[in-house]
Each structure stands twice: as structure tokens, then as C-alpha cells.
């Protein structure tokens, strides 16, 4: 069943057309990855889904059109986005950052439960509970960003280059966590530069180039595709 569907989506930054008619589908329970070079429009695709950029075309989530609604509404319907560059609230504590992730959750008990769950995934966050987000190292910030997104228990998690700037060991951990989340039933749309690793854990993949989808298919097929190898796996 398709949970998220984009049909012929165009996105613009002023006069620049960053997406030129993108169509993609994410089914419930899948890990789908979107790969492509710099400036191809990967981040823009995620932003379009969240309503952060102006778009034309159809974006539907769970069968409902969400293309024109404001980001906070989209978020409260169950789409969590871990943005490029982590975007931690640097002057809020780890605790407050997590609280903000759970902004749409009214039930205090639920918030508590999910906080505990986050600590299970990322024990480091428990140690740094009262620390300001901005003073944490890159890897810790990335963990916090993911944990923050999980606080709302999203139907689908959009991850934008979670491995960027992280030590190999952390990258490894993060990919493990993504797979674990997926096993527990979460749908994931993963944007990555690190195409090799992304395709290894994904079910399906899309290749995007200058605002257009140029290829799609099963992840392992893409991994062995010569063109993909040449361009993205080097």
C-alpha cells in the first residue's frame, strides 16, 4: 500500500526550478532511498513533502493531498523530517529539544515513554540530558535530531543525509538504528550521498539528477547497475 506518493511535482526557489516533475512512491513499511549528486534536488524533494517549499503537482500522504498545507500541519499528521545539517535547537537542552519533537503530543505519559525509548536507541543522550544542544559534537547532534523526530512517533521518517560529517563508527550505528526502526514497522525515506551504504539497507531506490528522477528500482538492482556504479559509487 502506498503511504506517500508524489506525482509530477515541481518545486521552485524564486525563479529557479529545483524539481522538474518528480514522481515517487513510498509504501508502508519500506525503506526507500533517494540518491543523487550535489544539487540534484534530494533535499528539495523532502522539503516539498513537508511543505517547506512552494510546489506544483500532487503530493499525497495516506491518500490525502498534503501539498499545499503548512509544514506544522503536515508534521502533526505523522511525517517527521530530520533535516540536512541536523538543525538542533542549539540553545535548548537535550530534554527541551525532545519536548519540542513531541509538541503535538498532548499526553504527558506518552512523552515520557517515548523519551525512555529514545534513550534505549541512544544511551548517549541520557548522559547529556541537561546539556545545551549546540555544545554537543556532530555525532551526538545527529542522534538527537533523529531522537527528536521519533518523539512524535511518525508514520514516516524522512532522513536527509544522516551520515554527513560523522565518524565511520557512528555512521554504522545510525544505519543500524534505521534498520531497527524499520523492523519495528516504521516507514523510511532516506536521502544519502553515501549511495553504497544507503542502497545496502534500502528496499527500493530512486536516482535523481538535476531535478528529475532518472532511474528507479529494487535496491540491489541499482547497486549492480553500471550507470549507478559509475556515477555514484565510484
Amino acid at each position, binding site marked *: 500500500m502506498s503511504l506517500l506518493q508524489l506525482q509530477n511535482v515541481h518545486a521552485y526557489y524564486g525563479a529557479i526550478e529545483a524539481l522538474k516533475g518528480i514522481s515517487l512512491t513510498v509504501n508502508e513499511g519500506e525503506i526507500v532511498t533517494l540518491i543523487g549528486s550535489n544539487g540534484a534536488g534530494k533535499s528539495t524533494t523532502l522539503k516539498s513533502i*513537508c511543505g*517547506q517549499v512552494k510546489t506544483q503537482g500532487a503530493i499525497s500522504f495516506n491518500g490525502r493531498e498534503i501539498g499545499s498545507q*503548512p*509544514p*506544522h*500541519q503536515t*508534521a*502533526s499528521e505523522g511525517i*517527521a*523530517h530530520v*533535516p540536512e545539517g541536523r*538543525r538542533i*535547537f*542549539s*540553545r*535548548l537542552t537535550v530534554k*527541551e529539544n525532545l*519536548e*519540542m*519533537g513531541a*509538541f*503535538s503530543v498532548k499526553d504527558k505519559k506518552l512523552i515520557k515513554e517515548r523519551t525512555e525509548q529514545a534513550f534505549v536507541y541512544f544511551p548517549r543522550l541520557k548522559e547529556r540530558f541537561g546539556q545545551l544542544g*549546540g555544545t554537543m559534537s556532530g555525532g551526538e547532534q545527529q542522534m538527537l535530531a533523529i531522537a*527528536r*523526530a521519533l518523539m*512524535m512517533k511518525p508514520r514516516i521518517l524522512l532522513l536527509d543525509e544522516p551520515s554527513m560529517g560523522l565518524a565511520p563508527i557512528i555512521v554504522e550505528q545510525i544505519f543500524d538504528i534505521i534498520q531497527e526502526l524499520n523492523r519495528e514497522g516504521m516507514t523510511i525515506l532516506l536521502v544519502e550521498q553515501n549511495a553504497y551504504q544507503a542502497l545496502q539497507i534500502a528496499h527500493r531506490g530512486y536516482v535523481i539528477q538535476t531535478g528529475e528522477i532518472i532511474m528507479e528500482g529494487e535496491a540491489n538492482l541499482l547497486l549492480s547497475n553500471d550507470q549507478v556504479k559509475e556515477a555514484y559509487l565510484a
Partner: protein
Amino acid sequence: MLYLFCGFYIHKRGFNMISEILQTLPQVLVDGLTLGAVYAVVAIGYTMVYGILEFINFAHGEIFMTGAFVGTSTLLIFNTAGLLSGMPGWVAYILILVTAMLFTGLMGVGIERVAYRPLRKAPKLITLISAIGVSFLLQDIVRFIADLKTGSFLVTGISLYNENVKIKTSSIWDSFDDAFLKTNSIIVLAVAVLLMIGLDIFINRTKWGVAMRAVAQDRETASLMSINVNKVIALTFFIGSALGGGTGVLFAQQYGTIDPYIGFILGLKAFTAAVLGGIGNVRGAMFGGLFIGVLEMFSAANLGIITSGNFGGEYKDVVAFIILITILIFKPEGLFGRAVKEKV
């Protein structure tokens, strides 16, 4: 011999000077705190808006002024309707406070909607221009209405509390004289402290308060957390403006007379206070306001005495600014501001 004599003279003068300063010190403190409380609450309004939108809401002083006018005219309307005589003073006080706060709060929201929201993505300084424009508009609109109704924009309202309380500070130490305190000053201080404490709790303890700080730091990401950014900003403007408007009422009650231009000078002082405390920091604004108020009162009362008439009270703002500049040079983020050093 002559030398000795001079020394003695200077010593005597110094002694006189200190005793003169000490005599009025209680009174200076009382007056300074009262004025400072007004600065402090207005400063909070600047700080909140700055904290969240990172721009100096130049029109905030005018919102304060509008509050003063709304409160005063409400009271005048009560009076002409004959309601005032049958009403205890405190009821009337609360009524005008609430009216003014509601009015200015909504006005703040409206101003944000019309004059600032379209500029969110524009360069920061252009919003400053818009704010300057709004502040001119408000000055003139209020002037126009006051002028139309009363024939002059200098409006003197009704004082609800006029008594004077004597504080026997002389019994603490006999160098002190007694201080007089208007009943209204007590109200100003009490209301200001209540507002400040309430706000502090709101911002630091409630979800919406944290959301405000989150929006302040990163609007785009906040919206990804399902925070309605527009709503948070509107809320900030509502609270900040309502505080400003409420202080306007306190001010009008304290000094009796208001005009459409009180916002400019007071706004400037309050803004200075906000910066002194570390702009964006609510507690800093409170402290800055009280500090500037007392400092100003102290310099106006004693500069002339200290410099034997060479530099008088007219330099009080110079003193305030020099202290501000000195503090900023050594602590560039203000007294309470956290040094958010850019991480390289």
C-alpha cells in the same frame, strides 16, 4: 600650612558631599526602582520580540504609549458615564489594565500581521524600517484622536491612588532622610513584579514558552516539529505588546500626564535596558530596566553634587550610555546574555 588647609577643605567638602548623597539615597532608590520597573516591563517586550524575530521592534515604545492612552481614556469614559464613583479604586485599576492590555496585545498581533510578517524573508534591516514607519503612524494616529477629543494631545488623566506613604528610612540609619512613596508606586512595583514572574514561568516552564524559544532559534525546523510558527509569533507579539500596554497604564497612573511622544524616549531607555541585560534574555531585561532606572535617578540627583555643579543631571543619559558601552565592551553579549560564540 596652605596645603593642610586645602586638604582639610577638600576633606570637609567630600564629607558634605557624601552626607548629602546619603540623605536622599532612600528616596532615590524608591524613585529609581519605580521608574526602573516601568523600563523593565517595556524592556521585556523588546527582548521577547528580538529573541524571536531578531529585530528591534521600534514600534514597541509606541505600543506602550498607546496602552497609556487606552487606559487613560477608558478611565475618563468610566468617569463621564458616572461609573467611577460607585467603583472601588482597585476594580477600576484592574479594569483599565485589562482593557489596555487586551487592546495593545491585539494591536501588536495586527501590526505583526500587516507590517512584519510579509517581511520575514526580507533582509533584517528592512523590517526595522517598517517598524519605524509603524511607530510614526501610531504616534500620529494617537495624536489625532487625542487632539480630536480633547483639543490637545497632552492628556492628563484621573489618578486612582494619590496618597503618599512615608517610609521611615531614617530609623534604619540616621544619615538617611525619610522617603516618600506614592501608593501608586507600590502598585507599579507590585504589578511589574507579578508580570515578570508570570512571564518568566511561562517562558521557562510551559510548552508554549519552550516553543517560543525554539522558534526563536530556528523557525523552519520548529515548523517540522508541528509547531505553528505563525501562532507562536503572534502569541509573542500579543504577550509582549500586552505587557507594553499594561505598563503604559501604570505609567499614566504614576505620572498623571501622557502625550503621544512618551513612547520614543521611554522606548529608547527600555531598549538600552534590554541590551544591557543581554537582549533576548527576559531576566536580563528585568535587571537592566531596574538598573537603568536607579542609575538614572542616582545620576540626576547626585551628579551635580559630585562634580560640584560642573556636570549636572543633564548628563544622566551620558552616564547611562557610558556604563552600557563599558559593560558591552567587556561583556559583549550583555550582563545576562549567554556568550553564544559562533562555533567555527
